[in-house]
């Protein structure tokens, strides 16, 4: 972000452009559905139109085009700026960001390499980490985030994203350590609170998770996914009513949030409200008719409602969508047993075992 602060002689206020450009750095690694809500990326700066150098003109034109999502045109401008001024570090950085947007991650990395060569800019380390992550090289991304932190130990995002990689590597405690640092630097870092909560949840510290999700919501109560995660932590903890309430909030904020419907259905199932659960799973399938989990879960509700044929039907649909869905086989076997189709039940349970469905072995004790 300092790149733009440095260009103080530019007259044109380009607040919006800056916001988008910087956000690119934050969100590039994935099309997060809620990324845009991360207000902390907004940087106030001014870009002043100047005729001091042609390179600067192209540079500024590039930024304008980027803001209009004309990435290829922006790229041409940054190319020219660099051509005219081969040591233009900020142009390398912005071109890297633009290439990232164009999904030319290797090209982006080459530009960040150059930027780093010129100034050891922590942002370039960070952005290179993002590009490497986008290429699936998590280890290299982690190294770059670490380098960004070494260059700036208050780099909240570098901590945050490094924590994310550690989370994905199932190293939840180390992830929490990074999220702690991100929050130290940025007290209202809602995402960091959410992700720290998730790491705690994975460590089965549901109380800690609930605390963090609530902190995230204190910062921004409109984050539907945080309400959803809060619901799941509550469900894990056994607070089914609390969970149902949280899922309902998530749904209130995002009417199409099928994951939250699916989760609320499960919470209602656990609470014995099979009618309510059925309605939720029906809604999921209305929103996303190929969501195999909802078919499987609706099958479970039908089983409880003693609609064993309906259960078999839904499981079969789930299996059609995902032939390796072990639990759908396990559940279908349970229904077939009660439909007195012992042979079919045993075949399904054996298939579930083959597909690694946990606990399926015990079901087969009565099979011949």
């Amino acid at each position, binding site marked *: 972000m300092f790149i733009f602060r440095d260009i103080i002689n530019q007259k044109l206020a380009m607040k919006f452009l800056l916001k988008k450009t910087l956000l690119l750095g*934050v*969100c590039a*690694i*994935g*099309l*997060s*559905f*809620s*990324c845009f809500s991360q207000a902390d990326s907004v940087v106030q700066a001014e870009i002043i139109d100047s005729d001091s150098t042609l390179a600067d003109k192209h540079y500024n034109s590039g930024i304008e085009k980027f803001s209009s999502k004309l990435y290829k045109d922006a790229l041409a401008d940054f190319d020219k700026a660099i051509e005219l001024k081969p040591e233009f570090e900020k142009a390398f950085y912005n071109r890297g960001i633009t290439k990232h947007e164009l999904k030319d991650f290797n090209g982006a990395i080459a530009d960040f390499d150059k930027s780093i060569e010129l100034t050891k800019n922590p942002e370039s380390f960070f952005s290179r980490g993002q590009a490497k992550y986008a290429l699936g090289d998590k280890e290299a991304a982690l190294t770059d985030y670490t380098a960004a932190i070494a260059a700036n130990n208050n780099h909240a995002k570098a901590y*945050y*994203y490094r924590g*994310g990689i550690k*989370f*994905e590597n199932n190293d939840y405690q180390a992830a929490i350590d990074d999220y702690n640092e991100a929050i130290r630097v940025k007290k209202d870092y*809602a*995402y960091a609170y*959410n*992700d720290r909560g*998730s790491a705690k*949840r*994975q460590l089965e510290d549901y109380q800690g998770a609930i605390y963090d999700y609530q902190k995230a919501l204190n910062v921004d109560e409109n*984050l539907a*996914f*945080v309400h*959803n*995660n809060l619901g*799941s932590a509550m469900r894990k903890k056994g607070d089914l009513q609390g969970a149902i309430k949280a899922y309902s909030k998530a749904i209130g904020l995002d009417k199409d949030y099928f*994951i939250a419907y*699916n*989760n609320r259905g*499960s919470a209602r*199932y656990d609470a014995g409200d099979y009618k309510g659960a059925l309605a939720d799973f029906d809604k999921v399938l209305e929103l996303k008719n190929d969501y195999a*989990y909802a078919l*499987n*879960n609706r*099958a*479970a509700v039908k*089983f*409880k409602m003693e609609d064993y044929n309906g259960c078999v039907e839904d499981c079969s649909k789930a299996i059609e969508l995902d032939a390796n869905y072990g*639990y759908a086989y*396990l*559940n279908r076997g*349970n229904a077939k*047993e*009660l439909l*007195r189709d012992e042979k079919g039940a045993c075949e399904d349970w054996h298939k579930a075992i083959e597909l690694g*469905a*946990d*606990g*399926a072995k*015990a*079901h087969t*004790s*009565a099979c011949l």
Partner: protein
Amino acid sequence: MLKRFTMLMLVLLSGGLYAQNVEFDKANFKEDKEGFKEAKNSLKLGDELYEQGPTFYKDAIEHYEKANTFNPNNAELNYKLGDCYLSSMYKYKALPYLEKAVKLNPNVNTKVHYLLGMAYHFDMEWDKAIKEYSLYRSAVQKDPANAQNPYFNMQAVMDELKLRIDQCYNGREIVKTPIRVFVDNLGENINTPHNEYGAVISADESVIVFTSRRPGSTGGKLDPMINEPFEDIYIAYRQDDGTWGKAQNVGETVNTDDHDAISGIAPDGQRFYVYMGRKNNGGDLYESVLNGDVWSKPESLGKEINEKDYHESSACYSPDGNTLYFVSDKPGGQGGHDIYIAYKDEKGEWSETKNLGTTINTRFDEEAVYMHPDGKTLYFSSKGHNSMGGFDIFSSVYDAEADKWSEPKNIGYPVNTTEDDVFFVISGSGRHGYYTSVTNDGVGLRDLYMVTFLGPEKPMVLNNEDNLLASVAAPVKETVIAPEVQVKEAQLTILKGVVSDYLSKEVLGADIEIVDNSENKVIATFKSNSSTGKYLVSLPAGKNYGIAVKKEGYLFHSENFDIPNTAAFQTVEKDVELKKLSVGSKIVLRNIFFDLDKATLRPESTVELNRLIKLMADVPTLKIELGGHTDSRGSDSYNQQLSEKRAKAVVDYLTNAGVAASRLKSAGYGETQLVNKCSNGVKCSDEQHQENRRTEFKVLEL
């Protein structure tokens, strides 16, 4: 206006009907004198039967119902109808009559609360039953007439009420966690519109034997006590399609013109215990054996079991046939009928009878004992323990090491009910139980049913995901660990098959000897059926078994089964073809064991070696070769040497035992005569290699 008045009157009348007791008095039925006369006559006929006691209550019902149709509002008649139904097989019909009797006249009879308690108890209305029993208890305690009556046993009445109230509390808990079962009527090949009960089955569920009071019983007479045919024993066999064949009377060698009831059957279905009634010393136990296709005349189990003048009512087999569990009301027990155990002595007689003790027996009755083919799980019926009413079925597991029975466990609702639940047997696999029940949709009165145990509910597994990471769009799947399903598997192996002649394929009745190899002891001997060649042995888990199938004139056949305690239930079908003793015939000796990579005979081989010694003594002209064989693992030369040494070790054992060396030859074949594909370099399981490691016995001269 008149119409409205009439309507009002009708409403008032109908509202008052319940509260108004209408006596059978002709003044009340002036408008229907003829009807009254008939009803009064029915009432009289009913009363005559009612006064003869509970055995005749069921016969009184028909007459009482007629009278009640004419006058449904007589408190006493409603009371009597309720009482009669409670003594019949239609207990569920009692409650409305008793409730009405009390409404018509709360003081209809001092026993009405007792009967109401029973009716609610039967209906599983636990709290109402407890309330009614308690009301009756207070009434009995407060009634001065009881105190003055020298024949009234206050303690006995209080004990019975306490038992019933306790049963209600038990029931209230037990029905909260019903067991998951399918219950199937055994169908018209087994059940008739008459009474069938007391089914027993072979361990593999291929044979069912039961008691029936259907017409056509042996002798063709009716039991004067209840005007029904005497009990006879029937048998049916499982057909290839899994259904039961038509049940047949087991025949006149077993069934008499008196009561003959089945009690227990051996796991192989080749012998059973019979209960014989009235004429026999208060009720005694007998045994009949299947010779070919004829059941032998039952023989008494002897004086040790059948005590003079006492009632021995039930018995069952242990899997090895060496232990007998039976029920007797002889003195010295815990009270009523108790379960006893007896052991077979060296002469094959039952001895060492002892009461199973207070863990199993209560001061109330225990009945209908059944030992599972696993040899350790005992099923029995009891009115004590935590019964929910009448007899309930319980199970208890014997821990041989601690010499203790586990606390009896109520096998649960809906198999156990508030009625008498007796005669329960369970298949070797533990998957099916067979029992007697009275239901509305049966073929007849008491019918036989099969219950399929589904075990605890198999939990459904739901799948969920969350957006755990704010910056990553892909949701994270929740880790699911399917809840554990409690598995209760029977711990035994059923070995069954047909014994036949190797060449002619003719079925053979042969002796089957079961050896506990670690104890070097023959623990049981069975016979294959001479008509069918079929045999079945139940091998409880936890032993290394040697099995020898023997018949005179044939080389014996040997099998080995190592069944650890943790082994799952399995049925092994093994047809055995015995080879006639002739030059060139050979057999594998499966129960000769060596130390690993050595030619030292292990002690577990003793019984098999002794069997060989006996054969050599029985057939003095016999000359044999003992051949050692190894599997393909290890070098060929090493295996050759090892096999030679091992064959020689067997020969040495026999010569040391006195068999002339000139009759014995040893030969080592190394890995040259493998019985399967497992030669050098072929990947095989341990079991497949085991097949090749063997000692063979070949007849050289005869």
